[in-house]
């Protein structure tokens, strides 16, 4: 087992991650101890997903994925990690649902208009998720696809895809819900929200059911290129210095803490790498063809107009 000191160190890092400050450390330690002794069952189901939110979840570093699985939650079934395959796997899913009292994590959109477009164990995922949600303690929609429909529900939406809360609302399922949008969801957002729910109950949510901890401020407000915006020092082409607003950056209306938190263990993030924020954590992400990610085409058009 890990030492007490290591344990408190984890707690402190987790408290920091959750933005709770050091006074919360004892409560966090208690939460983690509770998790390891009575690890609450978690059922992770994938709808129309790319598994990117699972891959991102595996990038968690404090605590790491092994610690997450052994100490903090009892992952009953996850189709990317479970040894159980086929009927055995489905039996775990069914019996977990039957027992109730678990937390349901859903990754991926729900093809409500074409239920054949996502099935597991011969059952449409739209039915399986509804059945599980009705008996879950809470439903956590991880990633923009599960939260709002994401790319599967973008314009032309061939499968009638939508987010999990919307799907459940149509079926009058009133289980507590939380959205963790992002394409993918940052591991800290997923891990931080799960731990908070399990120990402290539902974190404070905004009117879109997102934890305020992670989604209360605009990318733009905490962007390190904010001064460039103020000085109207705009990048004109990719790879330029300066604010990326005129290349299409939508950090000005996207709520998430990427510019503060950074990605992959604080290595980098979209805007620092020269990539305009494409608003992957917002409900409108990719939804309309008339609202492209980059404004390159527009500026090129203007250039041609000026020439003619």
């Amino acid at each position: 087992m890990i030492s007490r000191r290591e344990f408190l160190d984890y707690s402190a890092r987790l408290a920091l991650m959750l933005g709770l400050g050091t006074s919360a450390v004892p409560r966090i330690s208690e939460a983690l101890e509770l998790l390891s002794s009575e690890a609450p069952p978690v059922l992770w189901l994938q709808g129309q997903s790319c598994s990117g939110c699972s891959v991102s979840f595996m990038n968690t570093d404090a605590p790491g994925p092994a610690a997450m699985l052994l100490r903090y939650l009892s992952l009953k079934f996850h189709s990317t990690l479970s040894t159980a395959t086929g009927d055995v796997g489905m039996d775990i899913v069914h019996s977990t649902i039957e027992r109730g009292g678990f937390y349901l994590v859903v990754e991926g959109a729900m093809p409500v208009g074409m239920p054949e477009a996502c099935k597991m164990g011969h059952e449409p995922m739209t039915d399986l998720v509804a059945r599980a949600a009705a008996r879950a303690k809470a439903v956590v929609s991880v990633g923009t696809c599960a939260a709002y429909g994401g790319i599967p529900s973008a314009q032309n939406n061939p499968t009638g895809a939508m987010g999990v809360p919307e799907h459940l609302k149509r079926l009058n399922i009133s289980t507590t819900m939380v959205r963790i949008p992002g394409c993918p969801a940052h591991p800290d957002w997923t891990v931080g929200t799960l731990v908070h729910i399990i120990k402290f109950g539902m974190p404070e949510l905004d009117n879109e059911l997102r934890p305020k901890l992670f989604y209360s401020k605009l990318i733009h407000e905490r962007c390190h290129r904010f001064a460039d915006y103020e000085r109207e020092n705009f990048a004109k082409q990719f790879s330029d210095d300066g604010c990326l607003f005129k290349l299409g950056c939508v950090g000005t209306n996207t709520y998430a803490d990427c510019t503060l938190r950074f990605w992959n263990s604080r290595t980098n993030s979209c805007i620092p790498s020269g990539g305009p924020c494409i608003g992957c954590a917002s409900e409108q992400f990719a939804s309309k063809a008339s609202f492209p990610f980059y404004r390159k085409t527009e500026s090129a058009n203007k250039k041609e107009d000026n020439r003619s």
Partner: protein
Amino acid sequence: MAKTVIIDPISRIEGHLAVRVEIESKAVKNAYCSGEMFRGFEVILKGRDPLDAQQITQRICGVCPVSHGIASVLAQDMAYRASVPSNGKLARNLILGANYIQSHLTHFYHLSALDFIDIQAITGYLGKDPALNELKDWVKVQISSGQVYPGAPFLPRYLGGYVKSSDLNITAIKHYLEAFDFRSMAQRAGAIFCGKLPHAASLVPGGVTEKIDSQKILAYRTLMQQIRTFIVQAYLPDVMAVAASFPEYFRMGKGCGNFLAFGVFREPSGSQNTFFPSGTLVDGRLTPFNPDFIREYTQYSLFSSPTGLEPSKGESQPDPKKQGAYSWIKAPRYNGQVMEVGPLARILVSLADGKNQTIVREINNFLKDTGQKPENMVSVMGRHAARAIECKLVADQCLEWVEQLIPGRSAFTDFEIPESTEGIGLTEAPRGALGHWLQIRDKKISRYQCVVPTTWNCSPRDDQGVPGPVEQALVGTPVSDDRNPLEATRVVRSFDPCIACAVH
């Protein structure tokens, strides 16, 4: 009488795959692969701004987003006649290479290893390693807890023959835990040049948006050296040890025996050459790859679009209730032939091509060390071996490419999007040959088609009724207990299927 066994879902792969096998006299007689999830990326891309494509197509797959991003920017480079500076090409290779390593480590340790390694051996562990002792205590507490299915997600599993050596089991379990850190480290290395992973921010036609400086070069090199050490000291030896414990798997899961590679990791110089060469192997004969020979068949796929279309004219109209169809995956064929793609295809094409002595040497070393013949590589174990050999080659190569970056020099050249144009982006994802076909009219995407590695490998029958590579590889596989079809799942997982990719 054949008995039908349906394995649904196949866990520890990416996505929603169901496999139906007919078992007769304790061996698979017939097999059917069903991709069970469809989103319609090609339909969604229609009418959009072409620059959206490299972002949207990355979301086809969270395991290999970079490959889709690269295929998309290559198609756009061609369509816009964009020239990519050397730094841009190198950075793309470094991002892609890091993602290969992440994918391969995850595949062997977290997806496949527990098909061979006995996780329960941990209860007999007597050493002092804290991580292993924690796992041991956890397993003990779980088993005595009276929960429904204690020990998930590591238990239960199919009953069958697992590794008997407790040393090998313990070593591999230790590496299973450590591999979490190294795969995540590979994602960090990639993110140095692409903002974040999964779903890279910096990939654009004309290069990458990331600026190259010496700190980033040093950071990448430092991470990659540590990852390489793990590959050399853990991954390759573990694959060899598992192979030595299951030599019969060098003769199982052969499949169609034809191989296709598009080539990957463009050289930073002006040439179109790639580190892993392109080519096809049919009946062991190497011929140059020609993209015009690709057709996608849909008789057994859940689409109403015409069958036999070439990708540049491809359509993807869903028909979820189509009679006789059993998969969302199309059936791509090359010159009418069933082809396997993936690390094994890349390795065998490189070996037959023989021009890259670094690759040839690495394969020959493996064959010498394991006492296997080249033809035994066409097997379950050969696929695992090819992946591990390739992983080391990619790490070595990344360490060379990173030294070739020139700090301060641009990694991007600007471009203009023509009114009407076309482009093809051919590359290789960790799972095999990947192509994006792009058509632009009025500066908007008028057609976008992706032919993806697992589309080849997990394809259903084609219009001639010929089964796909995994379906063929399953035939003849001995299954000692049809309630625990462990052998069949080992064959399927050796291909590292990704259904989100295959259907998209």
